[in-house]
């Protein structure tokens, strides 16, 4: 199992940022998600975030909403998410689960943490779990030996950045802009400042996500962040492809472009 620490140490040694790719479990199909994530890893993704499809994804834009809806229609359950993690972790990429809080809450935090660790997952990203509500999850994650990643945003005050950074392990997720997930024409101008502000509170790697979708944008972000997170752009490739083989090729091509970007 590759840990986040190993990933970021390796990237640092190579004087580059890490590339983090996101894909929901069960999209485009249960097996298709593992195949797509594998292609992403083979073409240069260091870390994979497997999204746990949730009925009410209120911080996601239309692209991820669409993928998640298809995944739920495919009948994706938490067991499938764990199996996806297991399949992806085998590629050697550090594999996380990104999920809204309610599915963990309902499944049982201890059980979720244990099952994820057993599947070879290295941690979670929980975008709607605030420091105030995180106590149980921090304890269970610690007991299971998995990392806890939380988000800071351009609107975050110094006080909030401090609180969030303190409960992160693995890395801190800096949202590049105010808004929902989705590829944008340009990466938010607030991102660089946010990364700098976050570094004052932690020595953990800081990764930037939201709005990144091209090699040029990846290069731009890699200049100041430890990791570049790309989700919607990968999903877009799969949604637009005429068939699964074309989708895989397209995802592979994008991952290669982004991987070159973080090395520029």
């Amino acid at each position, binding site marked *: 199992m590759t840990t986040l620490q190993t990933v970021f140490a390796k990237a640092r040694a190579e004087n580059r940022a890490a590339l983090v790719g996101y894909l929901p479990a069960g999209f485009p199909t249960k097996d298709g998600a593992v195949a797509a994530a594998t292609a992403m890893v083979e073409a240069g993704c260091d870390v994979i975030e497997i999204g746990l499809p949730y009925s009410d994804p209120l911080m996601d834009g239309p692209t991820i909403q669409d993928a998640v809806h298809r995944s739920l229609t495919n009948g994706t359950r938490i067991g499938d998410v764990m199996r996806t993690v297991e399949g992806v972790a085998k590629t050697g990429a550090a594999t996380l689960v990104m999920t809204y809080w309610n599915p963990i*809450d309902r499944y049982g935090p201890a059980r979720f943490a244990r099952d994820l660790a057993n599947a070879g997952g290295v941690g979670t990203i929980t975008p709607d779990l*605030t420091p105030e509500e995180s106590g149980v999850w921090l304890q269970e994650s610690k007991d299971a030996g998995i990392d806890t990643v939380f988000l800071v945003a351009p609107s*975050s005050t110094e006080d909030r950045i401090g609180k969030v950074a303190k409960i992160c392990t693995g890395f801190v997720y800096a949202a590049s802009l105010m808004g929902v997930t989705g590829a944008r024409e340009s990466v938010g101008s607030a991102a660089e400042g946010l990364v700098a502000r976050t570094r004052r509170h932690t020595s953990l790697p800081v990764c930037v996500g939201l709005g990144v979708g091209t090699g040029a944008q990846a290069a731009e972000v890699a200049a100041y962040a430890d990791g570049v997170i790309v989700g919607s752009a990968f999903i877009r490739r799969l949604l637009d492809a005429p068939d699964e083989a074309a989708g895989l090729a397209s995802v592979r091509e994008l991952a290669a472009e982004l991987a070159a970007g973080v090395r520029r």
Partner: protein
Amino acid sequence: MSLTEGPILTAADLAGNGVYGDDPDGNGKFGVFGGRFVPEALIPALDEVAAEYEKAKTDEEFLREFDHLLRTYAGRPTTLTEVPRFAAHAGGARIVLKREDLTHTGAHKINNVLGQALLTRRLGKTRVIAETGAGQHGVATATAAALLGLECVIYMGAVDCERQALNVARMKLLGATVVPVTNGSQTLKDAINEAFRDWVTNVDRTHYLFGTVAGPHPFPEIVRDFARIIGVEARRQILELTGRLPDAVCAAVGGGSNAIGIFHAFIGDEGVRLYGYEAAGRGLESGEHALTLTAGSVGVLHGSRTYVLQDEEGQTIESHSISAGLDYPGVGPEHAWLKDSGRAVYEGITDAEAMEAFALLARTEGIIPAIESSHALAGALKLGRELGPEATILVNLSGRGDKDMGTAMKYFDL
């Protein structure tokens, strides 16, 4: 104090009763319920709203303005109406209606909206967004936005746009942009998701004028306090009318704002039973209902820990009700707290029972209620038969039924 002279609203009316769990704790919790489960990006905005509200609620200027609008614009105080011909069908118990249907725009929603619209101005924001189910909150928000010169965008499920088409037209006429939401169940739940997405994108100039006592802290507290005037007035009025407190207070529960609004002033009155009626839709067994408190389980939805209709893996189950305003798989956290503490009782009313009460009130008393409010009326009919002729039951008639004529025409083949 007379209801027509002097201020109808004081700082005390916005404050809690000093009873247990009355105000949420520092993290916005009513017991284990409530709190904030939202993207970190929204925390500063929620903090800002909470801080401004803390200042506003004891600020004479704010209270004077709010009072003035409630009186001269919303038409407060609203009257009580005793309905003996309707009550004859409830075993002869005395039934008294609190007439929120008589407010400007036709539902209790205007109270909260005017309060938050004034708050929006204090926050220096120029744009308001809101979700709406029945369209009453949307209409009230569009109205206040027109009054105060704010830009206004309303998110409404596509299914609700159709069944409450009249309200869509009203909102447009009032200058609001109505965005039909076509994902998920295309009802209130999805409209809330979409409003949150807008808010996180445009938060610097936008206030999310939340329409019920659900959502992340501080909304459950703020919306309750602005709706609290319903119960404050009703308590004084019923004492004046009957010389004593009622035996029971009934209200419909969607997100829970009209119910909390009328319940709250009575929470400290031990002898007064509080009954909330949820939409049982086609019945519990059918699976097509909105029985969040009666058949749901504790989880997190729309930023708050509360009762939720969800499966065993935490996926939200779509609700059903003939009434768009009650068609919601979540509920305000204070109701979750009132349920678990036993202070309030929550029961289901089916579509059929609600429509029967809807028609009955129209025929016996000449009042056409909202279908939402009809759930409370149906509850009162049952309760009256249970409590007997000595009992007095106060019902929150949260809104009028004009918006529901399309549904009624279909249902009754009019």
